[in-house]
């Protein structure tokens, strides 16, 4: 299939395809990070994860409208404000949900799945009532649109690089928080042995609430970032849910590194297959491979032995 192309063409395509894979990797990591914290650290299956993401997207939409009408001078920078607000909004809603719903169900992980599915239906209908059933278009500042011309034939989309940067920052932030901070130590202590953590004076309920809020908040940032590449509508969150869960499960719960490794392998497989095969075939093969490997190695790529 490469016979007709010049060497420069091919090499630039390989560079761009490499970037496409990296962008997909960032998108997947960002989607899965929040879920990995919630599922991995707390064992809760949050089926409303996609809806928390879309909340972030709607916050971004509102911000863009607000800045356009009231602060047009600051419009180029609004995206950062929007992401911070998305984090706060989704995180706050997450803590509310944890308090009202999830904390009653820690002993029944399968039931959290049903309850959060119900929550996702309610959130979808809420978005529909407030924002209308149609998708909304989020206007981006000019500097986020377009691409960087590296050579004559190599172009890298700016928003893709932006997503990569955000993902890197958040991943580093989460890693520091989890492995270098007092809060992270508390979270890990609660995951590994809840009664003992409580016995040494850790407020486990507070840790649970903050962990859940953190996971949801990161989902909000992801949703905010995805307004650049995807659609924002009441049911858009559903588009991400299967991929996200598979990434987390494939990575092996309770392992941040596992989630990243899994996002990397799945995104590279899919992006390479998409280039050589047709889109939907690539998707099916990727999913089948993931499910097949999970059947052979159900604990995922990386696992952490924990005592519950």
């Amino acid at each position, binding site marked *: 299939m490469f016979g007709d192309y010049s060497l420069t063409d091919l090499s630039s395509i390989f560079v761009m395809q490499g970037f496409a894979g990296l962008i997909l990797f960032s998108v997947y990591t960002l989607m899965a990070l929040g879920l990995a914290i919630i599922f991995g650290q707390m064992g809760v299956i949050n089926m409303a994860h996609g809806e928390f993401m879309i909340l972030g997207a709607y916050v971004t939409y509102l911000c863009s409208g607000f800045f356009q009408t009231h602060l047009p001078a600051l419009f180029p920078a609004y995206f950062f404000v929007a992401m911070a607000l998305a984090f706060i909004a989704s995180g706050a809603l997450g803590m509310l949900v944890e308090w009202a719903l999830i904390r009653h169900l820690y002993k029944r992980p399968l039931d959290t*799945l049903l309850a959060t599915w119900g929550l996702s*239906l309610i959130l979808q209908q809420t978005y529909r009532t407030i924002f209308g059933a149609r998708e909304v278009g989020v206007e981006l500042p000019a500097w986020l649109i377009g691409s960087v011309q590296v050579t004559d034939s190599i172009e890298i989309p700016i928003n893709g690089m932006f997503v990569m940067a955000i993902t890197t920052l958040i991943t580093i932030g989460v890693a520091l928080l989890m492995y270098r901070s007092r809060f992270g130590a508390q979270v890990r202590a609660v995951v590994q042995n809840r009664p003992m953590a409580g016995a040494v004076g850790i407020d486990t309920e507070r840790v649970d609430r903050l962990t859940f809020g953190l996971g949801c908040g990161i989902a909000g940032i992801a949703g905010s970032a995805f307004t650049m590449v995807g659609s924002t509508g009441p049911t858009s969150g559903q588009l991400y849910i*299967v991929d996200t869960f598979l990434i987390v*499960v494939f990575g092996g719960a309770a392992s941040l590194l596992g989630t990243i490794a899994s996002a990397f392998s799945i995104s590279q497989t899919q992006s390479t297959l998409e280039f050589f095969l047709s889109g939907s075939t690539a998707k099916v093969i990727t999913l089948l491979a993931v499910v097949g490997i999970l059947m052979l190695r159900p604990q995922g790529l990386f696992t952490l032995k924990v005592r519950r």
Partner: protein
Amino acid sequence: MTRPNPAQTVNDNPFMKPMEWVSLALLAAVIFVVLPMLLDAFRLNLVGKYLTYSFVALGLVICWGFGGILSLGQGVFFGLGGYLMAMYLKLEASSVENTKIQSTPGIPDFMDWNQITALPWFWKPFTSLPFTLIAVIVVPALFAFVIGTAMFRRRVGGTYFAIITQAIAAILTILIVGQQGYTGGINGITDLRTLNGWDIRTDQAHNILYFVNGALLVACILFAQYVKRSKLGRILVAMRDKEDRVRFSGYSVAGFKTFAFCLAAVFAAIGGAMFTLQVGFMSPSFVGIVPSIEMVIYAAVGGRLSLFGAVWGTLLVNWAKTTFSESFPELWLFGLGGLFILVVLAFPNGLAGIYRTYVEPRLTRRAKAPEPAPAALPHAAE
């Protein structure tokens, strides 16, 4: 904390307790007498469709309620049963006579549109009704067996299993939609007419199918009851509560789990086949994640430990769905979402749990006196 007392679900004594016979009689009376008398042909057909979902809920009671294995991919088996039946019906509807305007007469219309000029090999056996009926049972069971053995032998946990089955549902949907030449694609297999020469579209046929469906459902309940009170049923419950102890006692945990999963798959497939017969088509929208999870809520509302509850739950949720979506379409999703949360938080054992906590004690107290007033029965209001 919400785990039921095992003594409640497993009884060593007779096949069914007296109250369970009453429940069965009540259910049979409602399905076979009350509803056909009260409803017109149109509504009855609708109830018939709901009852096909209750096969799935019944299967979920066995594998989720008793076995503790939550499958979020029961739509896969419902769809398999439905599609296998639809393949037979479609071939019968695509006789050379009916399809003479096609470039290749005698094959289903969607194949003709996709330039397929001969019937694919895996469609060929479906000209035979006996083969189809066997396939409706065997194919889903085999599929469940493969998934089950692969996963349970490696001790895949409950949440993992749920997510993997969900992914399987997603994959199958993409496959069916993408392979439209062989499956009818997103439109599904439509315009089904006759079953071995018998027109299934008439009101009379719908009536007969309704009763066949009801009879099959009762048969499945009885079989599930048989499983439940057998040793196997008790092992399932034991396994759900303390898997390791069962394993240490020398039982093959994976084998029992696989069996429960296969049984649930077969029930779902029977439901799917009856669905196709009564509705007249099958489409990928019943295979995916959303219908699969909705079917879980039917079982949850009815009570995940109660075979009868599964049927009542299915009827209740669907009745509410039809009513609410007719009068308050906006509110329906709030209602459905709220139902999920309410059932999980407040009534983890669903209708059956409410019945056991509030109604049964009174009934048994009064049963010692003359006889129970029918009005006090839980489901009479339906």
